[in-house]
């Protein structure tokens, strides 16, 4: 298993290196450390979201509601800031994470306690959260005039030569790495996906693991709600519309298996970076941004085809023989 993950990550690193090399041929300045740091910063939000989505996908579930959760939480914290500019920003960030976690827990409870398939639950909450975003704001939006300077400035501040937004991503990556590989919570999330029956016999509550994964994905979606509205200085109903599929795409390209149990923090981060590099590179090498969708679609398909070989279940192989006979 770990060998498989290593191989996938190395493959992705090679693919990204090739991608950067190819871009550099057309536009040499792209590979400058400063520019690569800017690409990393630009991809920060997607990386954090992909990590949350990975936790859910590992448990054989899927969270389609992350982008709507982001929009709703972002709207609530923007309204909080507009109405009470005195509240310190760290408290606002805590508020964002708490609201996001509560929304995620709502998904989690339905999956855990009622046994409703995650795709159905999150399909419902995708539209509910998006509609709620409209309702809490009364159909209006919050723009720069109504946000306090501190609310906007925090993630643009520079710390040790890196924007604070990048530090959010770095802290998230380290936290996720430690939680997923060094704690019982991380182990139960992996176990629930690798083999749910075995997990039950080993004393792991699979439903609870799914619930925790949804709380995690909700919490990071909430955090990214604050990051998104403060970065783009707009909180509106349409924020991050359709973005849930980009998050899943980052995971898929990163080698996180939709069948559960296979995936790594490094993979999810690299998958997000792959998409981030493409979207940042197209304008500078004079390719119309309209190509971006088709390119990421092709990348998803390539990743699925390449990764499928390592995931073949034994039953499939028997079946192939039966077909041949």
């Amino acid at each position, binding site marked *: 298993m770990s060998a498989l993950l290593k191989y996938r990550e190395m493959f992705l690193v090679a693919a990204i290196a090739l991608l950067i090399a190819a871009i550099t041929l057309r536009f040499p300045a792209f590979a400058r450390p400063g520019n690569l740091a800017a690409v990393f910063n630009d991809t920060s939000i997607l990386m954090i979201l992909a990590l949350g989505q990975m936790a859910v996908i590992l448990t054989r579930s899927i969270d389609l509601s992350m982008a709507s959760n982001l929009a709703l939480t972002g709207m609530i914290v923007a309204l909080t800031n507009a109405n009470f500019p005195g509240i310190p920003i760290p408290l606002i960030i805590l508020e964002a994470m708490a609201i996001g976690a509560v929304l995620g827990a709502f998904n989690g409870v339905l999956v855990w306690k009622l046994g409703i398939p995650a795709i159905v639950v999150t*399909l419902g909450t995708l539209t509910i959260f998006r509609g709620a975003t409209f309702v809490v704001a009364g159909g209006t939006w919050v723009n720069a005039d109504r946000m306090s300077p501190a609310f906007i400035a925090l993630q643009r501040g520079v710390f040790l030569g890196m924007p604070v937004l990048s530090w959010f991503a770095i802290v998230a990556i380290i936290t996720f790495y430690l939680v997923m590989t060094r704690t019982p919570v991380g182990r139960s999330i992996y176990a629930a996906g690798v083999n749910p029956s075995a997990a039950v016999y080993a004393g792991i509550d699979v439903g609870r693991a799914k619930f925790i994964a949804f709380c995690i994905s909700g919490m990071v979606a909430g955090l990214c709600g604050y990051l998104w509205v403060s970065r783009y200085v707009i909180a509106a109903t349409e924020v991050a519309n359709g973005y849930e599929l980009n998050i899943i795409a980052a995971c898929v390209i990163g080698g996180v298996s939709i*069948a559960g149990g296979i995936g790594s923090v490094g993979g999810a981060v690299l998958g997000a970076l792959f998409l981030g590099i493409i979207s940042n590179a197209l304008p500078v090498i004079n390719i119309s941004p309209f190509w971006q969708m088709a390119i*990421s679609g*092709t990348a998803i398909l390539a990743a699925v085809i390449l990764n499928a070989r390592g995931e073949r279940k034994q039953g499939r192989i028997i079946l192939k023989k*039966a077909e041949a006979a």
Partner: protein
Amino acid sequence: MSAIETIAAPRKIPDRLDTPLKGAVLSWEALLIAVAVTIFVINSLASPYFLNAWSLSDLTFNFTEKGLIALAMALLIISGEIDLSVAAIIALASTLMGMALQADAGTPMLVAIGIGTGLLCGAFNGLLVTGLGLPSIVVTIGTMSLFRGIAFIILGDQAFKGYPASFAFFGQGYVWWVVSFELTLFLIAALVYWFLLHRTSFGRRVFAIGNNPVAAQFSGVRVARVKFILFCLTGLMAGVASVLITSRLGSTRPSIAQGYELEVITMVVLGGVSILGGAGSIAGVVLAAIIMGMVTFGFGLLNVPGIVMSIFIGLLLILVIALPILWRRLFGRRPA
């Protein structure tokens, strides 16, 4: 549960429709009819404009196009697969029709291109899923970006306009009085799919595959071939829907039908089709389509923004699935 048992009783939705009331017959369709009637009555009381023939006729345009895709999607989901690329197929088919229009293609040619593109896209999905044994949810997320991406590459931020008058009939014409061509087509398609799923051996195979693909394979069902046909059908219906939408709007934009895939899947799941495969009915899907159309139209009459309706649709989806489970937990017999 073996595939054989399921084939004998394909309509039984396991674990969800065991009647909570002792002796009472509660089926998913009955529940949906109750919901539909309730919404109809509320709409009639809430708005004086709801109850007249033309108003009800306008209402049908809210669900016919998505409903057509939902019919094929229902079979696909019953077989245990899913297609998230249908809205992107609409966009690509519409774009290619627009290109044909620039080359002075006539109406029959436009329709052929729209439907043909849908079929080809569906076949492409089917090949990737059945030919390479890949998970359909990821494959169709990929092809969704790919198909719509191609539409964007061709069109950019342009739009194709100026479809011929004879082409307008499909999305704007009426067969008789207030009965539109779209509604007629939807009703005929519903009958065809009902027959296919509930009255043919092909339909039995779809249920068998959804319940246990391995058992179905060993019972002589050509699983890959059936699934491939279902992907083709879903693509085909997306192509048909593309002709209707392009005709109704009279223009093509690459952002056409954005978000439709989720609405279609909501329709199918609300109709009682198990997302895990193996259970569902066409009657339920038709009812769900009508319910979603009524909700959208009713709220529209009351000047409620579309985004707020989606809260109601989302809640309806979760409640309709959660309530029977909760009911059984509270009042059902405790397992020994």
